[in-house]
């Protein structure tokens, strides 16, 4: 131990350097990308996963997209780098949905690249679209930490994602959808996966009030901020007993208090699980952005592969894909056919649990324009 302390690593002796910011993006751009920056003329879908991009100058590049598990080993990242060096002059990028995109100039390298990635990394090529022909791949699922890292999850993230994507694999690698469909997952109501505006989302929900351990609260928690963290005002300070009291009727099991105060754990293996939401979107294309709507209030956790969740997602996706018109995302499809038909076609049950009773949002919000689409 002493010896080790003497042999300090250089990193341990350096003066902290702060606020220098991320690397400049320009040094990360492929020379052809840099040259044609802001001067792209058009793009064309080559095949699932591959897009050809043509610049005004006539230059051409190809982006080749692969699904990843998002949780990557640095050893995998190094393998990715090797491949990018071999095929892409050392340039690549990740997408906003956890996919990796290789940047190529030589079309002849595309197939070998795909083959090598599939073989070495097992990453499928796909996830793109051919808008002109209304042919869409499913893309990767935006997701969060779950049991891998977070302290508030009501479910795991990576495990459900893996199970769902295994089942929907062909939708990723082929153009099998009539329109864009985005699936997201967040492992608790904090919604780090931004499930509140996705075509299909899975969100972890607790269903039991936190168990208040008065001792632990006294020892470890700052009571005012714990009380303040509760969105529904279910918590009151109990100054005498130096703890908090909970109004069961007001609690909606969000776990916000638990984040502030480890003395009131929220998890409950038998009652934790996921809700399923659909019909959110954020693009302005055709139809304004929409918040997602709950269509399944709860499915219990069934690790390691959550078959009920997987089958429900698949059912929704396929019902939509079968019935939707071209370009019609779930929100637009339901808008056309009505929620009556959505429940009928998917076989999901509408219950009183699906009628909104969360009263914090003021109605004024309904009048605010949540879209950049308007007339001049």
């Amino acid at each position, binding site marked *: 131990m002493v010896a080790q302390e003497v042999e300090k690593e250089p990193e341990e002796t350096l003066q902290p350097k702060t606020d220098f910011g991320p690397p400049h993006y320009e040094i990360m751009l492929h020379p052809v990308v840099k040259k044609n920056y802001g001067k792209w003329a058009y793009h064309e879908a080559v095949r699932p996963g591959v897009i050809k991009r043509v610049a005004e100058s006539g230059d051409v590049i190809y982006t080749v997209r692969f699904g990843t598990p998002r*949780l990557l080993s640095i*050893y995998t990242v190094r393998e990715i780098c090797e491949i990018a060096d071999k095929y892409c002059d050392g340039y690549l990028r990740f997408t906003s949905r956890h996919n*990796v995109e290789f940047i190529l100039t030589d079309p002849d390298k595309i197939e070998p690249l795909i083959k090598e990635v599939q073989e070495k990394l097992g990453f499928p090529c796909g996830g793109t679209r051919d808008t002109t022909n209304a042919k869409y791949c499913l893309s990767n699922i935006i997701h969060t930490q779950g049991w891998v890292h*977070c*302290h508030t999850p009501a479910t795991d993230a990576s495990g459900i994602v893996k199970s769902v994507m295994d089942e929907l694999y062909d939708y990723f690698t082929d153009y099998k959808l009539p329109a864009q469909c985005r699936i997201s997952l967040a492992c608790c109501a904090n919604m780090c996966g931004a499930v509140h505006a996705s075509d299909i989302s899975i969100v972890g929900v607790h269903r039991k009030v936190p168990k208040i351990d008065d001792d632990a609260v006294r020892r470890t928690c700052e009571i005012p901020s714990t009380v303040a963290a509760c969105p529904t005002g279910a918590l009151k300070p109990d100054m005498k007993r130096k703890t908090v009291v909970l109004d069961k009727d007001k609690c909606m099991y969000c776990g916000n208090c638990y984040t502030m105060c480890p003395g009131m754990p929220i998890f409950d293996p038998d009652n934790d699980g996921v809700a399923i939401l659909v019909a959110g979107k954020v693009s302005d294309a055709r139809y304004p*952005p929409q918040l997602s709507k709950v269509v399944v209030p709860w499915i219990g956790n069934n690790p390691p592969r959550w078959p009920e969740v997987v089958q429900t997602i698949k059912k929704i996706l396929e019902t939509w894909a079968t019935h939707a018109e071209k370009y019609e995302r779930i929100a637009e499809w339901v808008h056309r056919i009505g929620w009556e038909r959505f429940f009928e076609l998917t076989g999901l049950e509408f219950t009183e649990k699906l009628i909104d009773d969360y009263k914090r949002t003021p109605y004024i*919000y309904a*009048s605010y*324009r949540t879209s950049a689409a308007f007339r*001049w």
Partner: protein
Amino acid sequence: MPVVDGVELPETPLLDELEKGPWPSFVKEIKKTAIEQEKAMKAGKKIKLPGAAKGLLKVLELAYKDKRTHWKHGGIVSVIGYGGGVIGRYCDLEDQIPEVWHFHTIRINMPAGWFYTTKALRTICDVWEKWGSGLTNFHGSTGDIILLGTRTEYLQPCANALAYADQLYGGVPFDIGGSGSDLRTPSACMGPALCEFACYDTLKACYEFTMRYQNELHRPMWPYKFKIKCSGCPNDCVAAKARSDFAIIGTWKDEIQIDQEAVREYAKVIDIEEHVVKKCPTKAISWDGKELKINNRECIRCMHCINVLPKALKPGKERGATILIGGKAPFVDGAIIGWVAVPFIPENELIEKCCEMLEAIWEWWDEEGKFRERVGELIWRKGMDEFLKVINQKADVRMVYAPRNNPFIFWRELNE
């Protein structure tokens, strides 16, 4: 105990199920890390946490068995000079799995648009192989590179390793991202780097905001978090409308540019009437088999026609962006898709105007905001009129889907 490549792995019957199936497996990634890191250590590499990935396998298997997380809240851990960027995390099975008793996350500010050279990526790998679990997320949901799992005492060396990566590793230096009640790491779609639809330079804007507001990004001092995201057009490929307090959505004001010859080419392969004309939300398009006409007064710039006919149609030339405010996830007042704060800012004024507004908003929010009140919720509480004064903007009908449905207007100026 299964042994792979000479490395002993814990029994993980449940997790093993998640190695099956065609989609790439995160379990494989963790196992691979466990194996490779131990091998590397054995091979003489300096590696501080060779057992971390293995520890994660253990804790995760238990979580799968118990159907609950085994992580505890982290408290405040940090690196010198910074208040955010690290998520403290401890395992509640300290005795059983000491390898991951500490398992803090470091958020690394990614390059705008998530573009990388292999050199830059390797820097991350090298640093994290040595100072952390070897596990990452590419990327976190806000956009950062997530370095998953290290001990408190390695946070600072790890940060130093990244900061001095050029000197130490011949690599590319990386700085830390946001967490806590600060500006979160801004993000941007690939924009002009690869996309012909970009109506402003998303990468530049994102980089500028990040650099100007390093202090706000690194030192939490606000009522809550604040997110900025830059999308080059209304397709919104970083979901800025839903996921950022301040969303910058590229758009244009004049006429869609049409190449009629290219339209006719498309007409040979697709049905313009069905794919384009009928799908225009405002019925602004007509097509007579020869010429595509767009009534630009009716067009709401939804992008659909351009998306379908990218060779033939282009956004207009008078470009800029719409600013939406208030987007966020659910608490306290419910999930919000941001709403229009400024209908249009021309491209050449965009970054400066945004900075002016951001600074004014932060000042106001800092003063008026309650603990854990996002800026959108503050606006609801205080009223749009006050907010408009803060950002020095006039009301515009484009800020709303419809005017108010009640005449309960506050005439404050008459009642001083």
